[in-house]
């Protein structure tokens, strides 16, 4: 499974086949050059030295120099193209993953997780690109050298190639055994490292509780055990590797000894010139070292293929919300929204997040939604913005089903203020214009005014052009929230969605803001999700949600009389609010 995913990514390299073919050709030439050098040296010995022909030696030497330089140029060019192809591949892949992620719905996004998606887009892709760079150079080089070396060895003296035939599989087998064991031990070791770190992390986080219950000894025992475990495994891994290197070197060296002995016998019987023996030693070295290189490379594959799996997973996730080809891309101002027996459940959840929700809301109305955590408040807003599609029932905008409208068209009508205010790096004006790119500076200022943001923006030395750092770390939570409200206002949408947007504001600002909003957006439809009853008691209607089921839709006063769930919420907040 994992392997196939890696292969799938690798198959996509075929777009770059021309460049890859160039790399392979260059590396082929380079390894030919490397293999040709011992042959020329052999000529120097067998012809030049034996006949005492200095001119010939110099002549061959010049040839060797030419071959070396040619090989050197080839290998440098190969590195260049390999790096370029690999990084180009990384660039293209990064673009695809990023574009894909941008098309995800909120749910698909959170299923993979923001942090994980960031890692996949950046680090994972880098790892794969770096591996491809290495592979292009080494993994191509190794088999070419091995095969070329064997050919040259046969040409030099066919009768001695049996040594290669014997040594090669032995070497391969030994490396295979050690690496297989080592890989196993490495993954065991990783588990033990994680355990040790977990034990330590728990100790740090629970330091007060551990000391309060006087369990320091017990925790230390847990740590010691984990530490011992890890140490034992680490020693085992390193000892295994300690045996591998000398063993491999011994096999390589013993093959030299065999060549000397059997070659020596042939030379003494004058069946082989001495230069061939010398060349032969070098061929076998090149062959065995390329095998060694190849097996070392295989060490790096598991990690990169884990990255590949994570990348492919993103590419394979298809977004569930798509525009139908006949979708409308024009939309007049919305004057009526109707939820018609709407149900929704997340794919793996046993209980629906929203169940049979029906209501209507008209232009100029404020509708509030209240309920505990996980009651489906935000889901309702998400459905309205088509961040997800309903499973049953329908949502109608002036009689048109939401799914018949293009997503961007639909959202152009909406002004959304999220629970957690998100700002982007750039000036304040940039951030406001995020809602409406063409907004004039006056429109921006007006939005800031209504959102009660002018009071702090105006005292900044650069006012609207003051720069917000990444994540908005240089403004307070309440200020962020007000800027994010201004961003929605500048859009002049026909539907406002406030997802618990007032909680970061102090009481005074909250009141001022809500009164300003009431004046400014009286011809829009306004949804307010809230936890605090105080924020929503003026709403035209309040929807009370509990576990995705509507418990009541009415005004505050009516609900206080009729709705038990609402009374419970009010009662619980009373005691909570008492002390704030």
């Amino acid at each position, binding site marked *: 499974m994992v392997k196939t995913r890696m292969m799938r990514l690798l198959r996509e390299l075929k777009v770059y086949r021309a460049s890859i073919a160039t790399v392979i050709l260059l590396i082929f030439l380079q390894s030919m050059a490397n293999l040709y050098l011992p042959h020329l040296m052999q000529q120097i010995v067998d012809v030049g030295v034996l006949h005492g022909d200095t001119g010939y030696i110099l002549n061959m030497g010049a040839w060797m120099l030419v071959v070396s330089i040619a090989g050197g140029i080839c290998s440098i060019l*190969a590195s260049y193209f390999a790096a370029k192809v690999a990084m180009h591949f990384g660039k293209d892949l990064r673009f695809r993953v990023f574009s894909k992620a941008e098309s995800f719905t909120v749910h698909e996004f959170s299923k993979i997780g923001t942090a994980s998606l960031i890692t996949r887009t950046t680090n994972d892709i880098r790892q794969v690109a770096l591996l491809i760079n290495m592979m292009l150079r080494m993994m191509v080089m190794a088999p070419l050298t091995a095969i070329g070396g064997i050919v040259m060895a046969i040409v030099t003296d066919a009768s001695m190639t049996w040594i290669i035939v014997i040594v090669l599989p032995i070497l391969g087998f030994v490396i295979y055994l050690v690496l297989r064991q080592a890989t196993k031990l490495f993954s065991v070791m990783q588990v033990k490292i994680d355990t040790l770190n977990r034990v330590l992390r728990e100790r740090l*986080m629970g330091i007060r509780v551990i000391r309060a219950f006087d369990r320091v000894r017990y925790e230390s025992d847990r740590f010691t055990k984990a530490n011992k475990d890890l140490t034992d495994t680490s020693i085992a891994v390193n000892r295994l590797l300690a045996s591998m290197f000398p063993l491999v070197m011994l096999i390589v060296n013993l093959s030299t000894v065999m060549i000397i002995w059997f070659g020596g016998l042939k030379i003494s019987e004058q069946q082989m010139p001495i230069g061939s023996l010398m060349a032969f030693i070098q061929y076998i070295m090149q062959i065995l070292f390329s095998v060694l290189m190849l097996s070392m490379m295989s060490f790096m594959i598991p990690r990169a293929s884990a990255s590949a799996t994570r990348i492919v997973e993103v590419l394979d996730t298809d977004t569930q919300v798509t525009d139908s080809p006949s979708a409308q891309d024009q939309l007049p101002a919305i004057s009526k929204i109707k939820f018609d027996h709407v149900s929704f459940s997340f794919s793996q959840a046993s209980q629906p997040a929203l169940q049979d929700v029906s209501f209507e809301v008209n232009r100029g109305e404020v509708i509030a939604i209240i309920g505990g955590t996980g009651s489906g408040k935000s889901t309702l807003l998400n459905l309205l913005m088509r961040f997800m599609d309903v499973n049953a029932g329908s949502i109608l905008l002036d009689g048109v089903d939401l799914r018949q409208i293009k997503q961007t068209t639909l959202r152009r009508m909406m002004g959304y203020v999220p629970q957690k205010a998100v700002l982007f790096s750039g000036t304040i004006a940039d951030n406001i214009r995020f809602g409406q790119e063409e907004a004039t500076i006056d429109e921006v200022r007006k939005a800031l005014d209504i959102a009660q943001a002018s009071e702090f923006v105006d005292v900044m030395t650069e006012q609207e052009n003051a720069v917000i750092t990444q994540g908005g770390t240089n403004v307070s939570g309440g200020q962020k929230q007000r800027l994010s409200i201004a961003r929605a206002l500048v859009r002049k949408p026909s539907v406002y969605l406030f997802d618990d947007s007032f909680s970061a504001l102090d009481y005074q600002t909250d009141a001022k803001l809500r009164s300003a909003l009431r004046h400014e957006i009286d011809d829009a439809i306004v949804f307010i999700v809230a936890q605090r009853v105080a924020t929503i008691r003026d709403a035209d209607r309040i929807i009370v949600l509990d576990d995705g089921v509507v418990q009541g839709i009415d005004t505050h006063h009516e609900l206080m009389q009729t709705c038990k769930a609402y009374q419970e*919420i009010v009662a619980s907040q009373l005691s909570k609010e*008492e002390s704030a």
Partner: protein
Amino acid sequence: MNTSSSKSNQDNRPIFRNHGGFGGPVQKAKDFRGTLWRFSRYLYPHRWKLTIVFFAAIFSTVFNVFSPYVLGQAITSLFTGLYRYHGIGPHGVVLTTLSTNVLTLLGLYVLSSIFSFIQQYTMAGVAQKTVYVLRQQVDEKISRLALRYFDEHAHGDLLSRFINDFDIIANSLQQSLTQIITSTVSLVGVVIMMLTINVWMTLVIFVTLPLSVLATMFIAKRSQRYFKEQQRMLGTLNGHVEEMYTGHTVVRAFGQEERSIAEFEKMNEQLFSVEYKAQFISGVIMPVMGFIGNIGYVFVSVFGGYLIVHGSVGIGGITSFTQYTSQFSQPITQLASIANILQSTMASAERVFEILDEQEEIADPAEASVISDPKGRVALDRVAFSYKEDEPLIRDLSVEVQPGKTVAIVGPTGAGKTTLVNLLMRFYEVNDGRIQIDDADIATMRRGELRRYFGMVLQDTWLFHGTIRDNIAYGKENATMEEVKEAAKAAFADHFIQTLPEGYETMINEEATDLSAGQKQLLTIARAILADPLILLLDEATSSVDTRTELLVSEAMQKLRQNRTSFIIAHRLSTIRDADWILVMDHGRVIEQGTHLGLLEQKGFYEKLYNSQFSQGVLAEMA
């Protein structure tokens, strides 16, 4: 929490480490000699093993350095033998020399491998055991560190020291230490052997030496420049990705996907334009070194051939020299990078030692006082305390609480209400005055003993990786299943535990993500009930708990309080009104104390607090 970031950093460790000065800057130790000296004390217990390693390293290298010479001898003897007995063919003499040489060679190879194995095998044990001891010491240190340390240091920092620094130390012990020996010996050995064979040829090889040094320097300089540029572009691109992903909902809600993608494409293009150059430059070192090696090989072949013709070198000299040139460059690059490796190892060791040098809690007294029949009276007598020397927080605070009574601690957020918890539990020591339980000064008690009298249910509910049962039983060693269930029932936790797939045996993962905040709190209450403490420290604050669980939590806390002396960081009006005594805190100080009615009459801070926050609340009138 910082821990998650350090965890992911660990996952993101690059596969390819850069050796030999390519890439980022080297971490340096502040006091290299001091740290080295202190670190070497950890190696002292392994001195005999290290002696073995030392000699094994020397032997394996020496044998290794000798073998190309013998190889050359073998070839030369074949050649000369052949010449001398040209056409006559008494193979005997040739074969005898050959077999002697081959056997010598065989011996050298086998011995070199055996010693190399002994060296690495022994070193593996030494390296890992040294790190084991260090880790144990850090752990024991954590048990004794004053709590101040944990409050003032980010956990992530400590964890990353633990993970990365120990990794660096272990690796460096395993490889670099012995490399110093092997590289030095083989460098000297190779030069000597080459000179033995032929001085002129050695000089020719030395010609290629500056070539490789120059090439390395040239490439290293370039690569550092491109790497810096690459790192910068990578930072910009990662920043954009992070920003857009974090604000994904907003990006989509405002239809800005296309702009975000367009910006990404621009950055991606810029990154690529430096990235491939950086990768090329850092990757080209190998082909370039290979090329220089080949040039050396050409020199050896040509010049060697010339010398053989003139009779000053045996023919095997070419083979010997070929092998020596390839053995020559490796120790040079290794020795060049060892200085850097040592620096960063000592920097790591220094960071570990820093933890070991932190201030510890005052040791428990040898003859600790023990309360024979504890009643639960708590008395603070003229207590003074401050976290920082120049910012006195509590001055001259005296409170006496009779057994079974409740003290409510109130005040605005950030008033430092946990300071009292810190003092009572002796997480911090008072600066002046004393705190008594019954008639014993807590400073004269063993900390473990003292803390057993207390039960703590705080806002951050600490649960560990283990079953629910283990987590509840944490309050009492060897608790039976019945006792655990009993406690869970009393804490209203039994019901939700039963609904979990494996009931009490359900594993809780580290962040306990499957449980709601309220459920976690119920578990900690059950844990406190099982521990059956004399005195309670409770924090009423519940953040985003759903309505029903919150009612349960508050009911369970009330139950727990019966017949116990309690200190409550209070958030509910009813709790405050019913408390026997109220401590009002602001800016870390206890500014007023008394009963509810008494404090109202004082018309001070409490009265204002009470009026602004409790009675005038918008909600009160709605209800």
